[in-house]
């Protein structure tokens, strides 16, 4: 049931022969794959396969020791995370990375920071153009709040929210940036069935309504096979399979990796 009439476009991001090491430990070895505009791309693999490291490379938190990443047709050199964010990449984290001292509303508003253009002096006054800008972005954020159905917790400090809602707020913050590419690191980890279903629905809606390209890491195979267009499988930092969910499902190496057949 993958592709439900989604329009898959050209390549948005291309990872070529990327390797990453920390001291003696190799987190990624010679990994290549691409992400096309408009698709939902899943990265799966056993624990420690290098999935999160891959996302960290894509959004500039780690710099690959070899290989290159091409984004929107341009080869990226040593980009800092705030530069990739300016380029339209947003993400969520495996262990929620919200600003715990701030309310839901303020957290999502931080996602709009890149879009706010008024200068420092106007903000000193909080009046005129600065106020108009605040309100304009507040309206956008309120649409996201409606979309994610979190109106009731708008002014609650996020530190007090239950886990599932925190994940949703984090998604909201990423969406507020109107990203071209959205990276989701285990968006459903630790959720119950109902919460997972909600989250799936949000992900599909985001993709459908805003045409956002999504790359996600997920452990729940059912979910991955249901919502993604293509899947790349990593094991011990290497790519072992890449293709549609059906292709991947029947790949012998993937089955071995997941069932734990020893390497020969």
């Amino acid at each position: 049931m993958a592709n439900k009439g989604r329009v898959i476009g050209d390549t948005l991001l291309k990872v070529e022969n990327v390797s990453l090491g920390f001291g003696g430990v190799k987190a990624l070895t010679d990994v290549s794959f691409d992400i096309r505009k408009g698709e939902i791309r899943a990265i799966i693999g056993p624990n420690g396969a290098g999935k999160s490291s891959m996302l960290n490379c894509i959004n500039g938190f780690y710099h690959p020791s070899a290989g290159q990443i091409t984004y929107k047709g341009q080869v990226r050199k040593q980009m800092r995370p705030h530069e990739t964010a300016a380029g339209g990449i947003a993400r969520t984290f495996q262990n929620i990375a919200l600003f715990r001292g701030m309310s839901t509303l303020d957290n999502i508003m931080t996602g709009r920071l890149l879009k706010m253009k008024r200068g420092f002096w106007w903000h000193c006054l909080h009046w005129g153009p600065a106020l108009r800008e605040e309100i304009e972005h507040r309206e956008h954020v309120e649409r996201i709040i409606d979309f994610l159905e979190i109106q009731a917790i708008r002014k609650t400090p996020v530190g007090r929210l239950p886990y599932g809602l925190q994940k949703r707020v984090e998604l909201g913050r990423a969406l507020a940036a109107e990203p071209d590419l959205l990276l989701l690191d285990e968006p459903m980890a630790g959720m119950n069935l109902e919460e997972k279903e909600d989250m799936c629905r949000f992900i599909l809606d985001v993709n459908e309504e805003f045409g956002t390209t999504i790359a996600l890491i997920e452990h729940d195979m059912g979910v991955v096979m249901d919502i993604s267009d293509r899947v790349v499988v990593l094991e011990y930092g290497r790519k072992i399979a890449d293709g549609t969910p059906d292709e991947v499902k029947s790949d012998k190496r993937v089955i071995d990796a997941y069932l734990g057949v020893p390497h020969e």
Partner: protein
Amino acid sequence: MTGDILGFLFGPLKEIWEFPIFFVEVVIGGLLTGVMYSLVALGFVLIFKASGVFNFAQGAMVLCAALSFVGFQELGAPIWLALILTLATMLLMAMAIERLVLRPLVNQPAIILFMATIGITFFIDGLFQTIWGSDIKRMDVGIPKEPMEFGGVLVNTFDIVAALVAGTLVATLAFFFQSTRIGRALRAVADDHQAAQSVGIPLRTIWVIVWAVAGLVALVAGIMWGSKLGVQFSLALIALKALPVLILGGFTSIPGAIIGGLIIGVGEKVAEVYWAPGIGGGIEDWFAYILALVFLMFRPQGLFGEKIIERV
């Protein structure tokens, strides 16, 4: 103008070249001051290693230990009794700090704990001065202060004794850390609190022990500094110098604390003697901090600290 600046920068080098013996004396003086800094820094490192707390109160502990030691003697206690009573005081203080500050703040961000130790600093400064008074007290533990001569170089006997005491203390601590059961437990706690607890190491006892050992180190530092400068409030401020020492040496390394102390001691002495007169003198106040600051820009983890890998 350029000539002035060049003269200011390179003039002293000529002086050093012409009077090498004096330079050696300055360096030795610096090394011995450095040993004293290391003594204070050692207390910081112990606590940081075992509890991850950056203990701003170490300087205040030096003052408190010295005040109590002199105070007990003034009350008529002989030196050995004063020593034991002071040690008991430091142990009590360690227990109180663990119970009243560390335990309620467990798992708080490091910066909150740091600010809490600033609170401890002020509290014990106030408390001990209330008990023992704030007049400058003379401390004499019978270490001779006459200068001695080694191959034409004059050295203060007191400084040599201080260096020997510091050396012994470091060796003892190193042995304690490496070879005893408690030392192993301490290192385990330093590596990972939860893992250490799960194998049955009593975290709270360990904390009390570390703070008490840091109290012992503070007492030694207090006796040394106190005999040199008299026991007074400014001891707590001198101890602040241990902060740049730590930055240089790395927060987790005992050898780092020693070497950092020596570098700062020599650096500021040489700078003070040769370069400060050209710019008004008194640069000992800030030289160590600026040195540490410049150093931080290039090597944030210190000379011997572990490289920090950030994770998401």
